[in-house]
């Protein structure tokens, strides 16, 4: 009897943790070096019921939704607003959305292995709880969180590519990998959420109140474009931000507003639209015209335009990017490879972005990265 009890004890001690681990594999800690155990963030995503999460759930399991077509808009037979958006998501492939390349799931997963530290926030049920994003308090993210981020980011890239030069997903991957490594829940004084937003770029897009006057943001049209877009990829985002054309969102600079920018679901949706919105605004309305003033040939080179746009995220902002265009003597006879090398020599931000890409690649493959890997070519499909 004693032997039986001892055997039972050992079976329980050794198999229960194993079965729990097998049940909840931490996708952001595949080799277990972080020691992630907390599953609260993954559970918060399961509870999220915003339009983007609903679209994701429908896209993950389209068989559960029975669709009808009504006035060119796909809606579910069960016509609650959430299922409307869910059904829209299932038709994205057949829509007239711009053809953009997608970031591979495996590259997002590789990025998530990176240690970024900082303070994370669990937002659920209107409550915000801070945690250290390191060691055992690192959240244990599920496969579903990874699939959700993969879906949300590619949808946002597709949406924000509507009616303009398509967004090059390689640069967005490098930028997010550098800023947060897809730890969408981190926030501090230097930036909030996936795109590490601060208040000023948000004001630049949504506008702000000055005394009794409402001032439109310089990039307000970006927000209006999402809301009025006929691209179904924009529909869940438009639903989240629709009121923000008239009433600017809570600014990310204040800790009391963090959840509006980092919560799984609505926070991620908002963060993606404002982050990508500021990217396309800077690229198309500041950087590209500055390059075109010196060289029409360089302005027509998307790679060069994107690299200078990344420069605009470092100290000095867009002014630094414009200044570098002059410093590198851009002309129609400039060689793109020399310009790229010059940008890397001069911009600490771009250099850091490229270095962090190497960290991602080290998690992605065992062999030395090729030039294609470093450019991000092999991380898009």
């Amino acid at each position, binding site marked *: 009897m004693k032997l039986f009890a001892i055997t039972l004890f050992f079976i329980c001690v050794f198999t229960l943790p194993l079965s729990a681990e097998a049940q909840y594999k931490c996708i952001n800690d595949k080799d277990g070096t972080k020691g992630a155990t907390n599953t609260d963030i993954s559970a918060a995503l399961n509870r999220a019921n915003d339009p983007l999460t609903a679209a994701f759930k429908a896209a993950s399991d389209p068989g559960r939704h029975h669709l009808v077509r009504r006035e060119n808009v796909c809606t579910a037979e069960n016509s609650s607003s959430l299922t409307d958006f869910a059904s829209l998501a299932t038709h994205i492939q057949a829509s007239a959305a711009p053809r953009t390349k997608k970031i591979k799931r495996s590259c997002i997963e590789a990025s998530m292995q990176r240690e970024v530290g900082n303070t994370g926030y669990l937002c659920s049920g209107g409550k915000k709880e801070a945690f250290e994003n390191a060691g055992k308090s690192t959240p244990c993210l599920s496969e579903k969180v990874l699939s959700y981020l993969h879906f949300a980011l590619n949808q946002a890239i597709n949406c924000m590519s509507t009616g303009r030069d398509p967004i090059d997903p390689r640069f967005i991957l490098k930028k997010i990998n550098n800023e947060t490594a897809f730890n969408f829940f981190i926030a501090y*004084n*230097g930036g909030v959420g996936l795109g590490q937003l*601060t*208040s*000023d*770029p948000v*004001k*630049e897009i949504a506008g*702000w109140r*000055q005394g009794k*006057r409402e*001032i*439109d*943001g*310089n990039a307000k049209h970006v927000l209006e474009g999402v809301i009025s877009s006929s691209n179904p990829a924009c529909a869940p985002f438009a639903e989240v931000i629709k009121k923000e054309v008239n009433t600017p969102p809570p600014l990310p*600079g204040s800790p009391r507003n963090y959840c509006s920018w980092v919560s799984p679901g609505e926070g991620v949706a908002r963060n993606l639209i404002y982050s990508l919105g500021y990217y396309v605004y800077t690229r198309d309305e500041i950087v590209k015209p500055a390059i075109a003033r010196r060289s029409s040939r360089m302005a027509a080179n998307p790679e060069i335009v994107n690299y200078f746009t990344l420069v*605009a*995220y*470092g*100290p*000095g*902002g*867009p*002014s*630094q990017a*414009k*200044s570098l265009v*002059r*410093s*590198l*003597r851009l002309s129609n006879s400039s060689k793109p490879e020399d310009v790229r090398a*010059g940008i890397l020599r001069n911009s600490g*931000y771009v250099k850091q972005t490229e270095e962090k890409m190497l960290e991602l690649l080290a998690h992605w493959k065992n062999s030395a990265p090729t030039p294609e890997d470093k450019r991000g070519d092999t991380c898009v499909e």
Partner: protein
Amino acid sequence: MRGVIASLVFLAALTASAELKKVTDFYSESEQQYKKAQSEKTFAARAKILRELESSLEGTLQEYEKKNPREAEKDEKEVSLFHSTLEAAYDIAHQKTADQKDCAKKRQSVLTGDSMGRGESAPLTKPAQETLRWIDLLCK
């Protein structure tokens, strides 16, 4: 004759080694021009003074480019950053009048650009401070 040649060689050498204005020189020039503009009563007169500063910076940057045709060096980079930050104020100075909403938007573009790579409410850099000072003067 020898004396003339020697003088010419000396002058040529002096010209070649003459240093172009640095960013500190331009901050002083901006300060002087700002004080001058402060005493003007109309937008047009104040805008004209800023446009003079713009021409001065642009002229010097073109000289730098002739001196270093391949790539800018540190001194030029600093002048160039000041010049490109001031662009928001130049844009207003090239208008016929200062529209208050446009002024607010230009102001915000300076704040947004300056916030990049820095924390929330970080102190403004010197080029941004100087640009905002000009915008406020033009838009008052």
